[in-house]
């Protein structure tokens, strides 16, 4: 009897409890993994079992890549010639003083694959902030409105002294590199011109999207009322009269120049050694280069050079990358040994 009484009482209490619970726990926070900070989680720990093999693997991978890079880089031939010409003993010792054509000869070893012909400038600050902004993108996109009123960014090369707008305006365009080169191969004492391919040396997007000529036909009409940049010898619409698709703002040399360099010593692609005649690269032999020397760099002690190089899958010669990979890889392997020793000696306090 007593038992049943207790049971009854119990029921009563628990019933009351339920009702109370419903009323009472209205403010109780939700029981979700998120609110209770119990989200399932991966908790990595730098354990020896992961770190040491990891280091060994990374090290080996880097060494492998490094060796590959190093070997590849070694196989690439590069020929560099300074032709600034303000020092005697250099290939073009008198170039600086005359505007005329000069030439010098050199030997080129046999190369694999097509050879690229670069010109290089040093101590030349295409990456100067003001230099970089000194252009009018709308104008270069072929918007005629900006031909007559170039952007302020172009100052002081927006208008000439007669207040005529300059097209293309700005320092970059104005300072366009204008030396020209002709390459001759001396075969059996006769000079044979090596045909140079100027197509496709600029970025695809620059050529097809970023720079546009106005739709005027002939192109010259668009330039009515404008003047050529001060340092230019001919206006933009005459950059390559032979090929309308290489003229005006989409002239490849112009595009190459307009893509400004990140560093004060830079190379720019001048020409590709024509593929139809030399598909496997330049044969070994004697060559001479004829330079029309227009571009002045000696005032700011700049240097000019020409570079011939072939490329591999990883681009041109680049010893640094291979060596860096080898060094980093070896460091990793070395560190893994050190860590192994440390680990063996001061074993992580296991469960105590």
């Amino acid at each position: 009897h007593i038992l049943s009484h207790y049971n009854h009482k119990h029921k009563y209490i628990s019933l009351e409890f339920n009702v109370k619970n419903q009323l009472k726990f209205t403010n109780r926070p939700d029981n979700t993994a998120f609110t209770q900070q119990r989200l399932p989680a991966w908790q990595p720990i730098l354990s020896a079992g992961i770190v040491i093999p990891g280091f060994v693997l990374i090290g080996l991978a880097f060494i492998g890549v490094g060796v590959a890079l190093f070997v590849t880089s070694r196989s690439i031939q590069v020929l560099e010639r300074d032709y600034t010409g303000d020092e005697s003993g250099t290939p073009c010792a008198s170039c600086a003083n005359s505007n005329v054509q000069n030439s010098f000869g050199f030997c080129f070893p046999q190369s694999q694959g097509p050879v690229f012909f670069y010109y290089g400038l040093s101590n030349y600050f295409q990456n100067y902030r003001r230099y970089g902004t000194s252009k009018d993108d709308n104008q270069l996109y072929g918007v005629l409105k900006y031909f007559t009123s170039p952007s302020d960014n172009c100052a002081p090369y927006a208008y000439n002294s007669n207040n005529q707008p300059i097209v293309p305006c700005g320092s970059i365009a104005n300072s366009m590199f204008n030396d020209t080169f002709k390459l001759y191969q001396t075969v059996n004492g006769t000079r044979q011109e090596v045909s140079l391919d100027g197509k496709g040396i600029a970025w695809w997007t620059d050529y097809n999207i970023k720079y546009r000529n106005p739709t005027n036909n002939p192109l010259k009409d668009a330039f009515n009322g404008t003047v050529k940049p001060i340092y230019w010898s001919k206006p933009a619409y005459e950059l390559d009269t032979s090929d309308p698709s290489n003229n005006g703002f989409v002239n490849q040399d112009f595009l190459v120049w307009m893509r400004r360099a990140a560093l004060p010593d830079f190379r720019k692609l001048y020409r590709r050694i024509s593929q139809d005649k030399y598909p496997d690269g330049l044969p070994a032999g004697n060559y001479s280069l004829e330079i029309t020397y227009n571009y002045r760099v000696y005032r700011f002690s700049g240097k000019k050079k020409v570079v011939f190089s072939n490329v591999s899958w990883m681009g041109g010669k680049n010893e640094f990358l291979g060596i860096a990979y080898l060094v980093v890889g070896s460091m990793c392997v070395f560190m893994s040994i050190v860590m192994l020793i440390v680990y063996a000696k001061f074993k992580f306090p296991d469960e105590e």
Partner: protein
Amino acid sequence: MTHLVGCVSAEEERRVRANDREYNEKFQYASNCIMTSKYNIITFLPVNLFEQFQEVANTYFLFLLILQLIPQISSLSWFTTIVPLALVLSITAVKDATDDYFRHKSDNQVNNRQSQVLIRGSLQNEKWMNVRVGDIIKLENNQFVAADLLLLSSSEPHGLCYIETAELDGETNMKVRQSVSVTSELGDPNNLASFNGEVVCEPPNNKLDRFSGTLYWRDKKYSLTNQNMLLRGCVLRNTEACYGLVIFAGPDTKLMQNSGRTKFKRTSIDRLMNTLVLWIFGFLVCMGVILAVGNAVWEREVGSLFQSYLPWDPPVDNFLFSAFLSFWSYVIILNTVVPISLYVSVEVIRLGHSYFINWDRQMFCSQCNTAAEARTTTLNEELGQVEYIFSDKTGTLTQNIMTFNKCSINGQSYGKYFIHVVFVCLSGERLDFTPFNPLADPDFCFYDDKLLESVKVGDSCTHEFFRLLSLCHTVMSEEKSEGELIYKAQSPDEGALVTAARNFGFVFRSRTPGTITTTEMGRTVTYSLLAILDFNNIRKRMSVIVRNPEGRIRLYCKGADTVLLERLHPCNQELMSITSDHLNEYAADGLRTLALAYRDLSEDEWEAWSESHRFADKATNCREDRLAAAYEEIEQNMMLLGATAIEDKLQEGVPETIAVLSLANIKIWVLTGDKQETAVNIGYSCKMLTDDMTEVFIISGHTVQSVRQELRSVWLCTSTIVFSQSTLGGAGKQLHGSPPPLPLPLSNVMDNISGEFALVINGHSLAHALEADMEAEFVSTACACKAVICCRVTPLQKAQVVELIKKHKKAVTLAIGDGANDISMIKSAHIGVGISGQEGIQAVLASDYSFSQFRFLQRLLLVHGRWSYLRMCRFLCYFFYKNFAFTMVHFWFGFFCGFSAQTVYDQYFITLFNIVYTSLPVLAMGIFDQDVPDHRSLEYPKLYEPGQLNLLFNKREFFICIAQGIYTSVVLFFVPYAVLSSATQSTGVPLADYQTFAITTATALVIVVSVQIALDTGFWTVFNHVFVWGSLGSYLIIMFALHSQTLFRIFPNQFHFVGSAQSTLLQPVVWLTIALATAICIVPVLAFRFLKLDLKPQLSDTVRYTQLVRQKRRKPVGRNAGGAWRGMGSVSEGRLGTRGGSRRSGYAFAHQEGFGELITSGKNMRLSSLALASFASRHSSSWIDTLRRKKHTHTPPSTSGECSPIK
């Protein structure tokens, strides 16, 4: 809350004429409309922006923005600054607007409350905001007082009315207010309408307990005091209606005057961060100067010669001016070392942590339906650095619930002690009183049926014992319906005794000034009450003299054993010694004891004493003393009945919490207003004091000299023992012999080896100890002790003690309390915690965090605080690292671009780097990261120490982060530099053009910082995965989008980088470069971390590792693992051991005078039991809560009954 008062300073005195609006309008007093909101729709934008630009950081970015508009300086487009700035401003604005919206809402709610105003002789309903100074308003029972009123008349006799001031000062007991006698006679509205008295009083102020003024009426002066005032925020109780004259309205009320702007608390990390930001500014200027000098040199040596291709800008005519411009340009591009997103991110993280606190179910109290609440969202990480806790006692450590636990009747002890009431209840041992006594209180627990048997068989001593308990008290009863009795006691222990008597068949039913009606074993008996010999602190006892229906006069007395046992009849010797043993036993259990006795009085004795009593009562001078003497006279030769033992119930888990917290090296000081005995008693029962302690020092000197003497001896004692134990050599030798003149330098040593000492200091001694010349000594002495208890302290002293520790120890302090008397300390401590319990909500309103159980403190500190600190530190380390890595690349580039402030990256990248590409992963880490799971941090309290020692983020760590960031920037610049300068695409096109370089560096940067955050993240939740991978993905997607032809075609002038992403990222050399840079940046960090983990593992690493090992082995998780760090073994096992000896009996009454006088005078006796119902039904629709806080918080639990443990 800023727009409080406009013209306080102007007002020197206030003149108010009743029922005369025209007259009162002359003074332009504030109306009763309150406005805590800051803005309205029109003013929001300008005012909010103005406020935001008062922040230094925002102004700084505005300044940068202006700089960027100068073309010669602008090295970045305007949007790189304006986008983040606009984002930050709008986030803050939205937050402010939401806050203000809620303030508007609560203002409206309050302003639109109805109140009855007497206008032109009739009562009219008016909104609160239309009530004017000088109006007479009518209040009804349970209504909030609308403004500060002068009580004119009430429905009760003598113009009395009762108010509850819980909203105002947190005290839940009722207070009596009385009107001036001339106005109390006015009574009804008709008379009041013609009342034209004028009140001249003090101007508005914030002193709640003070008021002085004068009422001029009919050419007479009546002085007014606080006793005549009803303050806004009070609730009328127990009074049908009353009329009051509005003296202060709206913002002038004492309530609003008190709710001024609270002191803004900053965390130590905040302060450190501000210092560091200043340093970084300094660093920024240095970098700017270096680069400007570089620019000057470059322009002179190179730039001037390079002019044929790049002429200087028109305003620049020499290299110095160019350098000057370059300085500002560099300030602009290097400004990202102090990213604007820092402050916002910190706020977001803290907000997240606050929500986690609010959401924590383990800090939810199911009994009172209250979840923990982070009321301040800016202090979370400081919770991980607490070193000192200052705790209140009543309501914080204890529940302020007294339960009748044991008793000794005529030498026989009854009752068993159980600590876990809940389990016992379910096991069914609890006595069931209902069949025996229909009037029994169902909540009452007792566990010994012998006593009930004894009552049932009619043992006379037992009956007399409970009769005494049912008669000798000042409890008021109310009976809403038959048998539904509710007692209203001045102190909870008195209530417990009367309830006990009620359950054992001696039910106190009701009282009148001259009678007490009880139901004794089912029979209604009415005693005539002849006298109440009320309690006070000196007497430590109270008595009643009653005449029973048979006409016998008997004095019943209950009181502290020490006092009462002296006044017994000699024939009680034997019983006394048995009872005394029982008392010792009870005291050893930490119970509060009382001895009970009676004395039969003959009619003559009564008459004689009654005469002397009347005489003493009428005495004009020394009335108190004479009364005491009269009482003393009759309380003699009493017969001992027995003793009661009442448990002052500790809150659940208090001893365990204290044990865990002290293992975490947190020092706990109890600051209580209670008496020394009670405080010490509680100290023992919550294990702050133990009998293992070497010594418990008690300082109770009354003079400066004696206090100093006592402190010195304590110091000497602790230091001798400590130094004789330790081998500190030199330091120890110096100390021996003479007491040290200024022991401060040694206090650090003392901290580390604080032995098992405890210090108990009394309020009056504390006053001396807190004086300037002694405070250093006091601090070092007190800190040498493991436990410190300050008893009998005033609220002000509580704050002083906190300030003292803040000043001398440079430690983070936390104050926890529940009552209005704790507010000062809650406000002055670094962190204030309010217990949302029974004593009103005042403490909660002042606090930064609130929850309802003391034991949640361990979770708040050891889990939430620790995590917050850890996360914040990791966040800051990473954040500074990231921004230095990001920004310093520009510095290195400066040397190669003629110091021209050319950025390395695309401008869009600079704009988005901090707010899109890298913000979310670090936020996820800052919000979700955990090093060890929560139960581990409770298991190993030592894990808390890094926070206290400030190890995870300090100046050293900061420099390490910066160094790492700079190293990364060097790698990120020079590796691409070395690789790309001579690299070409496989099509022969050189890679060294600016855009390729920019993209390579930027991609490498994003990858490196992502790998770094992946390394730093210790807890990869789904959010971390999504954010880390998402950020990398978004970087690629956004970059490709920005470099796409579509966008370029629309804005050819804006997107110079068209096609660069494809062109660059298709090159294997670029990826090789990125991989190389990443490896060079990350490998050393990995190696360093691994070695550190192996050579110098942190405790958290060990715990984490152990856990990992265990998981791997799939062993059942043993709770014994962890060895050396595991500290809290046996804390939770039941009643902790037995304490021998020291008997700590405490007198169980509250130390205020009781209602005795009011009862006998009959003033508070009411005729209608209707209004009495209000005693119980206390609605606390706490509008003041909403008023003061922008956020609506739930209604706090009001009556103590609701919070009692589950039955």
